[in-house]
Each structure stands twice: as structure tokens, then as C-alpha cells.
């Protein structure tokens, strides 16, 4: 397997002008601007194989989008090495741009006042697709995303979910081999989210496309990404399989028990943190290293019908990652 994306010690600093609040602050910053360095990425390294689907997770402002923007050639790296399919993204060579796509949930390339088909036609010319390729790709995307009736309606009249599917179509008409998806399901209803996920899955499988996806949507990650990269404050904190993330970072395990009697039920607090109590079912979370003791205590002191020990659900771990609290800060 060859490596489609290589990133080595990537650093990106931004200079931002700080402004104090109010009018006085605005006037002040006009005459003596206070500049501040923002370290968006502090030495990020990873590589991704052709055909892999990787999820980028982390709290807001962690550097996920900055990474995607650098990989697609929008941002000039402060230092470090970046290579996407052996191209330097910054050079933005046409041969490179013809093989990638960046889809940002809130930015649009569609012409607002015209039907989406006009943007598609324009992209056909820009990406220099021949008629056959264009028609085949368009037909396929239209079917997969179920947008047949919508392509002749002016974009401004479409709903957000409909528009997102149009954006995706416009971005994928040239069949990119590398796809950067920034929050692809943001603002979509549940049905539309599922459709989008199915589509991404299919696209990855069918074309062996390399995909990096950032998302705050749990289901996107659990359904799609086998490998995740956790980013926080411009650094990579974890890079590996989704299941390992749980083993590594869940400091607690869960005991689920069914009780025969409700006697002394208040004393459950002594064993561990009671997460749920709906007699006869109880759910208690206990530190990983004390799990055996806790289970023994439970069996000894209570009338237990049934007992299981489980890992913390993956969703809980990811939720912690989003809050930026995974490493016990």
C-alpha cells in the first residue's frame, strides 16, 4: 500500500490583531495594533494510506480544519513537510487540484442565483472533463444523492440539506482520489445525515478514495472511521483504531447489574459512581483498576441476579474528546 498523504512536523502560525472591546478599543487598535501569534498547528506528523478513511476529532479550534486547509493547498505552512499524492499542495498545480476536493459544510461554491446544474456545467469546463465522463459521473451522483428533481431549481430556493448534497455533487464531479470533508453532516436532519454517511462510505469503497473527515457528529465517526486522529491545541494526542481509543482513554469501566431485592440500594454509592438506577437495573462506573474488587463487593453485599462488566460506550469517550478533557486536564 502506498501512502497518499504524508505530513511531517507541520507547523502553522497565524498573526492576529487583537482588539479590545468597544469603540475606544477599535480606535486604539487602528493606531497601535497589538499583534498576537496563534499557534494553530505545533508540529503535526501522520501519514495516510491510499483508500483509508480517517476521522479527525478534537474540540473546536484544535487545528483540524487548519490541517485540511493546508493539505488542500489553501494555507501556506509556517514550517514542516506536506505531500499529497506526491504533490506539494501549496503549488496548487492543476494536475493536483484535479485529483482532490475539499468540502466545507458552510462554504459554498454553487452560484446562488442559478440552478445547480449551471455550476456543474462550469465545473465540467474547469476540470476539463469530457462529455462522457461528465454525464456518467453526474448521473451516478444524482442517483446516489437523490437530487434529480432539484438540479434545475435556483440554489437559493433549496433547503440546507438539499444544498449540501448539491455542494457535494459539485465537489465530486471530477471524481477526486483524495477527499477532505469538513463537517459534512453539519446542520442536516437525521435522515439526510444518514444518506450523507452512506454516500461517503460507498464513495470510499467504490473508488478506493482516500478520505479525511472532521466531524462533531458521533455517528459519522462510529459509522465511517476505522482510524481516528485526535487533535488538541495543534498537537496529535492519539492516532489509531477507534476501539483502541476507548481502551486507552476510558479510565473507567461499567458494571451493569440486575438486582433481586431493593434492600440497601442507597449503599450502591459506596461501590462506584451510580450512573443509572431504575430498579431492578443499575449501572455503576468504576475505575479500571478497581473493577474486580467492586464486582466482588457488589456480589457479596447485594442480591444480584445478573452482572456484566463493559467498556464505556465509545460515544462517551468521543464526547470527552470534543470537550478537550480526555487527558484529565
Amino acid at each position, binding site marked *: 500500500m502506498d501512502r497518499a498523504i504524508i505530513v511531517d512536523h507541520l507547523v502553522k502560525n*497565524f*498573526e492576529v*490583531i487583537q482588539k479590545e472591546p468597544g469603540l475606544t478599543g477599535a480606535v486604539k487598535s487602528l493606531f497601535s495594533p497589538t499583534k498576537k501569534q496563534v499557534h494553530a498547528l505545533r508540529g503535526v506528523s501522520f501519514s495516510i494510506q491510499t483508500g483509508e478513511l480517517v476521522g479527525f476529532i478534537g474540540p473546536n479550534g484544535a487545528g483540524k*480544519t487548519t490541517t485540511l*486547509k493546508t493539505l*488542500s*493547498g*489553501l*494555507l*501556506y505552512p509556517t514550517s514542516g513537510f506536506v505531500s499529497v499524492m506526491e504533490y506539494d499542495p501549496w503549488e*496548487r498545480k*492543476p494536475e493536483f*487540484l*484535479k485529483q*482532490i*476536493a*475539499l468540502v*466545507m*459544510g*458552510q*462554504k*459554498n*461554491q454553487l*452560484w446562488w*442565483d*442559478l440552478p445547480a446544474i*449551471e*455550476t456543474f*456545467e*462550469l*465545473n*465540467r*469546463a*474547469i*476540470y*476539463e472533463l469530457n462529455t462522457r465522463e461528465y454525464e456518467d459521473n453526474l448521473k451516478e451522483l444524482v442517483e446516489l444523492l437523490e437530487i434529480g428533481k432539484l438540479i434545475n431549481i*435556483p440554489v437559493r430556493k433549496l433547503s440546507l440539506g438539499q444544498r449540501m448534497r448539491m455542494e457535494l455533487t459539485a465537489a465530486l464531479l471530477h471524481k477526486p482520489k483524495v477527499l477532505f470533508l*469538513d*463537517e459534512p453532516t453539519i446542520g442536516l436532519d437525521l435522515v439526510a445525515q444518514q444518506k450523507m454517511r452512506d454516500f461517503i462510505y460507498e464513495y470510499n469503497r467504490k473508488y478506493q478514495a482516500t478520505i479525511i473527515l472532521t466531524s462533531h457528529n458521533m455517528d459519522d465517526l462510529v459509522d465511517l472511521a476505522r482510524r481516528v486522529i485526535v487533535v488538541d491545541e495543534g498537537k496529535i494526542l492519539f492516532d489509531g483504531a477507534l476501539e483502541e481509543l476507548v481502551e486507552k482513554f476510558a479510565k473507567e469501566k461499567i458494571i451493569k447489574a440486575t438486582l433481586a431485592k431493593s434492600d440497601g440500594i442507597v449503599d450502591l454509592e459506596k461501590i462506584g459512581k451510580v450512573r443509572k438506577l431504575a430498579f431492578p437495573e443499575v449501572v455503576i462506573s468504576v475505575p479500571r483498576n478497581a473493577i474486580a474488587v467492586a464486582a466482588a463487593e457488589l456480589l457479596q453485599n447485594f442480591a444480584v441476579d445478573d452482572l456484566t462488566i463493559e467498556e464505556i460506550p465509545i460515544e462517551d469517550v468521543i464526547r470527552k474528546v470534543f470537550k478537550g478533557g480526555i487527558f484529565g486536564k
Partner: protein
Amino acid sequence: MNKYFQIFKISFQEEFTYKINFVMWRVRNVFQIIVTYYLWDTIFSAPGREVFGYDRAKIMTYIFTLIIVRSIVLSARAVDVSSDVAEGNLSNYLIRPMSYFKYWFTRDIASKVLNLFFAAGEFAILFVILKPPFFFQTNIYVFLSFLMAIVLAILIYFSLLFIISAVPFWAPELGWGSQFLVIIVMLEFLSGAVFPIDILPGVYQKIVMSLPFPYMIFFPVQVYLGKITGMSLIQGFVISIAWAVALYLAMRYVWSRGLKEYQAFGR
């Protein structure tokens, strides 16, 4: 090439989606012409009156030629570039295999063609109503020189606009202000769009004529009217070509620096 033809086509379509807007924009232009006409008509109402060496017929000729030149040179869509940079919409273009400069140049040309088409119609109507003393240039060489002056004017304006639009790379909130200063204030006054440059005293005239501004309006108008000929015509072309080249190179330089600062705002 096909790329840019498609952009031309789609730009045209977009202009037509807001028909009322477009019509109102043209109505505004017509009013502007009428106001200018009556303003100067009043100033020169006394028979035989001359101001700064211009009599009624001369100034009217200047004004009406100005209207045409203005609608060709100064109608540009690239005024939106500055907000593209400040708001991060630029990303949508950088990600696709096409030249951003050529993209906007194509859109400008589409806009110019459309505006010229309508301006010609309005001109014909106003001409019949107001019957101004308009000078039709019949000398083919003078006319060709005029066309060349127009092409140079378009190039100078385009590069200038793009240089100004790069300001938000460094200071996103200064986009509109810098555009206002250069495009509205300096350009209007120094290009000859408000008054002919040759009413200025000698020294000031020389200074202004060495700047790029008069080569966008004043110079093409004077060439059309046959007022600049021989050596001074050549001198004018040399200066405007020099500016066109210098501003083009400056634009490339400023943009290659600016793109390194680009922060792709808005997610």
C-alpha cells in the same frame, strides 16, 4: 479556453437573474447623464462663455465621450474580490484548477460587454432627446489608437483593483476603506471622470499625467476626440504601457505575498 468561455456565459446569466436590479442600475446611469448634462448646460448658458478654455460644445463633447469610456473601463465585477479575501470565499476558487485572475477578468469582460450594449442603446435615445454636440470620430487611425488606449485602460484598472483588493490579506477590516480611497476618491478626481485634466495649471497637470489614473479615462477620451496626436500620443502610450506592465507585475507580487498570509477565514 473553454473554461473561461463557460465563466463568461454563466456570468451573463447571473446578471440577468436580477433583471430589476440591472434595469435600476441603468436608470441610475441615465439620470447621471441627464444631471451632468444640465449642470454643464447651465454653467455655459451665457452664449459664447468659456471656462478653462472649454466652450459649451467642447465640454458637451467631452462629457458624452466620457460616458461611453466610463461604462467600458469602470464597469468591473472584480470590486467583489476584496470581500472574497476578507471573508474566505477565495478558498472556493483556489481549490479548483483555474486562474483566479483570469476568472475575474472574464467576469469583468462579460460585465463590460453587457453594460456597453445597454449604454449604447441609452446613448442613442438620449442623443435624440438632448441633441448634444457629439463628435463622431471618422479617422480610422485615431479610432484604432482609441481602442488601444481603452484596452490599456482596462488592464490598468484591473491590476489596480486587484492590488487594492489584496489589502484584506493583511488587514481584513480595511478592505472597504482602501477601496473607497483609491477607487472612489483618487480615481474619480484624478482620472478625468469629474473634470478634464487639462483645466489644471501646468505643473499639476504634469504630475497627474505621470500617474496611472488619467490613463483610465482622460487619455482615451482625448485620443478619441483627436486632441492628442503625434509625439504626445506616443508619449501617452509609453506612459500607459509602462503603468500597465508595472501594475501587472506589482499585482502578481502582492498576490503571491498575500496568499501566504491568507487565513481562509470562515471555517
